[in-house]
């Protein structure tokens, strides 16, 4: 096999990265629309569904090893303070307490650009001050309260808009605000001057908390020099890299495992402080150690979607959008990066004059982490509402206005042609399914007194092309069953099922004959399960691995059956030649215990072409104008993501995104007490994630055209697209219903009633 080095540019979470990878052999021609696929494209129930619903699936949080110790973390009660002294003597005196780590005794361990995991200056309520290991969880929880810490309190600022002010407490030498994104095309200054109508508005979005059902955590065990870490993660290889950096041990001495996983939504991208703490304690104390966050800790220190303050100025010339200026400030907390909400403004619509700026604002609050389409959810909330506001002003149907700016087949940011863009088709399907013709500019009467009905929609732009490196191995056993080994992980999205389908299809096996083993750094590398890139990165490598196994099988069969390999094919577990079917097991069984090993790698994306996903959401809502209650009646979600490998798991992804979007736009809001910097609702009582009663009728539609320019399976990503347009679609529907616009998410009863009160 000839091995080649390839370099490729790709987009992840709105950022362009350059990747170097190795590929073997040649890529396969993509499956076309007429490839006659038997398993791919069909709605197979999850291969692990029964294990999950019967409780047999083992999540990291379920793992209790014999003799295991339990860790609790002492977190700062202050938003900013210097840790002057830590006295753990009272805690250590408690029976069952095995050790305490803090800044004065913990070994150095590099973590995300810092040299230690316990800072001398804690920077938000919930920042790690010390960790304690004990025989039981209860002892650890009690003992951690006995650690005495002497804090020197420092000035802080715990609010986005407060931190933006010139006279705000400066949290860094450079100040609190730094520019994080800038983009321009055309000449907005001139364009606004020559426009016929200009609309300006300010939009705010609240901090959204991930609230993964399984909190962040890890279990660590040392066997001699070998460290095994079980972690609830979206990237076992990322955890391995984090451990190598922190503990300075070689990869050969680290194994990271993640079998079943209870959600991450972007926040479980690599080793956490809990991983390192568990590993250090496990080594020091010679026992397995478990460190899991409680729900409260999860909501303080495990990341969040930044709150934003955004201003949009948008202008029309005649019946077209002529110019847009979008400025956005994001509360990154103590985060080292920030998401860019202006991505959709730059790239979604064909608008001649565009100017955007985005800013990162530091505050004395927990760091952001990636959260399902970071930036794009917040940005689309502003952009697609501004478009509706402009449409209202010029007396135009908002969908008709968008259509004029959605047909472009080249990416306005890069000037490259799209591989496939079917946004107008998404509009057509969505409008038909929701009954857009019923929309009136002033809303319509609702189904009960004091209720108004409205319709709204919004568009989705995202990447999701996937990219190398990603590798996979298929072991074909002598009995005709196969095992796929791949370093990716199924974070609840259905990856196991989809990959099994790809193997079964390419190898000619029944789905039930394929076993999928994921989430183990002993496999070959696969990327993080984030950025809507798993299927599009890993899938093509898996298909190649299956194909490699099939070719080897046919070579072997050719010799054993004495038929030319080119005259043979594999079909439903049998080797077929003219007039003859032989079960794989019968053929391979002739060679004792031979395992065919097929290998596959992800080839680079085509150059000079823009790979994007598109979509549109349509919402029908009612609003009770006396009580401020929003009733979501129907959501239509249409996505253009290339080939759909499994319509069932894909629809499940879309429903999940819609529901998470409903939370963002209607009820989820982290509340911070500004004078103390404490989160007031870091629990599932005060922080309102949607319940099943909040879930409306959801109609899911896919364009389902393979993107044959993208990769050999024709699929792009779907993890993030379904949350992106939903909040803006709801906001537009609410505004259509009640005639006033709520520009702050979430659109609570309070905000609806306040907006109605101020209605002219």
């Amino acid at each position, binding site marked *: 096999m000839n091995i080649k080095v390839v370099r490729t540019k790709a987009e992840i979470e709105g950022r362009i990265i350059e990747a170097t990878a190795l590929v073997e052999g040649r890529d396969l021609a993509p499956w076309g629309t007429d490839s006659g696929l038997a398993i791919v494209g069909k709605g197979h129930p999850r291969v692990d569904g029964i294990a999950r619903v019967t409780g047999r699936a083992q999540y990291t949080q379920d793992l209790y090893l014999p003799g295991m110790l339990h860790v609790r973390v002492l977190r700062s009660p202050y938003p900013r303070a210097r840790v002057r002294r830590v006295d753990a003597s009272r805690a250590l005196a408690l029976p069952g307490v095995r050790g305490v780590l803090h800044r004065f005794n913990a070994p150095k361990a590099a973590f995300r650009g810092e040299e230690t995991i316990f800072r001398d200056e804690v920077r938000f309520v919930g920042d790690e001050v010390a960790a304690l290991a004990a025989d039981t969880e209860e002892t650890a929880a009690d003992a951690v309260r006995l650690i005495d810490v002497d804090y020197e309190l420092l000035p802080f600022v715990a609010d986005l808009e407060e931190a933006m002010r010139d006279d705000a407490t400066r949290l860094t030498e450079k100040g609190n605000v730094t520019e994080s994104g800038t983009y321009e095309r055309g000449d907005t200054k001139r364009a606004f001057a020559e426009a016929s109508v200009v609309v300006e508005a300010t939009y705010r979005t609240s901090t959204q908390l991930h609230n993964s059902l399984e909190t962040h955590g890890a279990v660590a065990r040392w066997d001699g020099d070998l460290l095994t870490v079980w972690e609830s993660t979206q990237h076992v290889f990322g955890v391995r890299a984090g451990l190598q950096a922190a503990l300075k041990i070689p990869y050969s001495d680290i194994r990271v495992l993640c079998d079943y996983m209870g959600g991450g939504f972007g926040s479980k991208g690599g080793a956490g402080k809990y991983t390192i703490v568990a590993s250090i304690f496990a080594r020091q104390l010679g026992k397995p150690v478990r460190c899991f966050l409680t729900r409260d800790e999860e909501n303080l220190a495990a990341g969040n979607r930044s709150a934003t303050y955004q201003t949009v100025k948008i202008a029309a010339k005649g019946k077209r959008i002529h110019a847009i200026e979008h400025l956005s400030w994001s509360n990154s907390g103590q985060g080292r990066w920030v998401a860019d909400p202006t991505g959709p403004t730059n790239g979604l619509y064909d608008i001649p004059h565009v100017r955007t700026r985005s800013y990162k604002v530091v505050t004395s609050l927990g760091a952001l982490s990636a959260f399902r389409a970071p930036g794009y959810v917040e940005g689309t909330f502003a952009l697609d509402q501004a478009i509706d506001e402009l449409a209202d002003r010029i007396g135009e149907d908002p969908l008709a206005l968008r259509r004029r700016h959605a047909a472009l087949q080249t990416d306005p940011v890069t000037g490259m042609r799209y591989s496939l863009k079917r946004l107008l088709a998404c509009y057509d399907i969505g409008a038909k399914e929701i009954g857009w013709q019923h929309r009136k500019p002033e809303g319509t009467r609702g189904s009960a007194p004091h209720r108004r009905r409205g319709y709204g929609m919004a568009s989705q732009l995202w990447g999701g092309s996937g990219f190398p490196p990603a590798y996979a191995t298929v072991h074909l056993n002598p009995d005709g069953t196969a095992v796929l080994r791949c370093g990716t992980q199924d974070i609840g999205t259905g990856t196991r099922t989809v990959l099994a389908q790809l193997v079964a299809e390419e190898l000619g096996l029944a789905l039930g004959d394929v076993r999928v083993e994921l989430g183990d750094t002993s496999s070959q590398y696969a990327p993080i399960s984030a950025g809507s890139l798993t299927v599009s990165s890993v899938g093509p490598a898996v298909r190649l691995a299956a194909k490699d196994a099939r070719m080897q099988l046919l070579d072997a069969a050719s010799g054993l059956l004495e038929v030319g390999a080119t005259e043979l094919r594999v079909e439903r577990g049998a080797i077929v030649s003219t007039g003859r079917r032989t079960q794989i097991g019968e053929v391979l069984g002739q060679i004792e215990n031979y395992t065919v090993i097929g290998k596959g790698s992800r080839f680079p994306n085509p150059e000079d072409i823009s790979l994007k996903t598109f979509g549109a959401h349509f919402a029908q809502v009612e609003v009770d104008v006396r009580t*401020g209650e929003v009733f979501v009646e129907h959501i239509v979600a249409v996505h253009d993501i290339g080939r759909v490998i499994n319509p069932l798991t894909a629809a499940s992804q879309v429903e999940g995104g819609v529901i998470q979007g409903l939370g963002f736009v*209607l009820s989820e809001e982290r509340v911070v007490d500004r004078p103390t910097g404490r989160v007031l609702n870091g629990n599932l009582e005060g922080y309102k994630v949607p319940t099943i*009663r909040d879930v409306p009728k959801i109609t899911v539609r896919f364009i389902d055209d393979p993107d044959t320019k993208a990769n050999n399976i024709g699929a792009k990503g779907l993890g993030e697209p379904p949350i992106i347009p939903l909040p803006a679609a709801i906001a537009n529907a609410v505004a259509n219903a009640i005639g006033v616009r709520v520009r702050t998410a979430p659109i*609570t*009863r309070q905000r609806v*009633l*306040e907006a109605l009160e101020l209605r002219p």
Partner: protein
Amino acid sequence: MKPFAYARPRAVTEALKLARGGATVMAGGTDLLGLMKDGIAAPERIVDIRSLEPLRGWARAKGKGLRIGALVSLVDLETSAELARTMPIIGEALRPAATAQLRTMGTVGGNLLQRNRCWYFRDEAYPCWLKGGVRCFAIEGDNRLHAIVGAEECVAVAPSDLAPALIAYDATVSLTGSRGTRTMPLVDLFVTPHGRVRREHAITSDELIIEVRVPENALTRRGAFEKAMERKTWSFALVSVAVSAKLIGGVVRDARIVLGGVAPVPWRARDAEKLLEGQVLDDAACQAAADAALERAEPLKDNGYKVPLARELVRRTLRRLA
């Protein structure tokens, strides 16, 4: 969690003996365990009263009204077909309350005695006035969920959905303690924290709720209940409203309007009740009563929306009586 002694007595007298001198009584535990986990309650002794037979069961005795034992689970009341005929407002009030799991564990007595949900009260880091501290943090802090009427030093609101419904039906509550048994209007079980009174209930630490009674003549009332939440279920009320009245020849007699989520206690809008006396429940009368019910509201900086919201729920519940 602080170690505690635990007892599960089988007789009321035994329970009272055990409860003397500062023990904490537990029934379903759905509130107490949360308070303990959050560091708000740290009892040294817990008296688990779940085995006290006289506090169990509910029944309607002809001519004697409805008797509901303190240990009756919320789910039993909610799902009873008989009660749905006798006093449907109870089911109306309970269905949107908490979750099925909590309603299964939770009891009537515990529901009435649950502590407020103020996020400053529930966070042990805030030495708030109600917990013996010097000030209320909610008055200056984020008070979107707090009281709009009737508050003194503490602006937390009464969280129970059941209490307004029972009070609207003139329920009484019987308490037993070492000094005997006393019965009072249920509305008097709730006290507004003020001055030296840093508590939300009139029950003393060595008393138990035995039962709640609804008088026979109240069962002929018509009632209605509405609750506004921040999502469709599993949420404490932003505002809840229970109303009842006797309608004689279409004319209102003896109306009751009780609001939850707006005041430190279930709030009886007595002025509005009076206004309805002798009225026909048309739009104008309902609106006038709703306006009167909130006339004394003094919202804080973040909770002004509760005023129109409460007003509308009062109007709607009254309209449903007609």
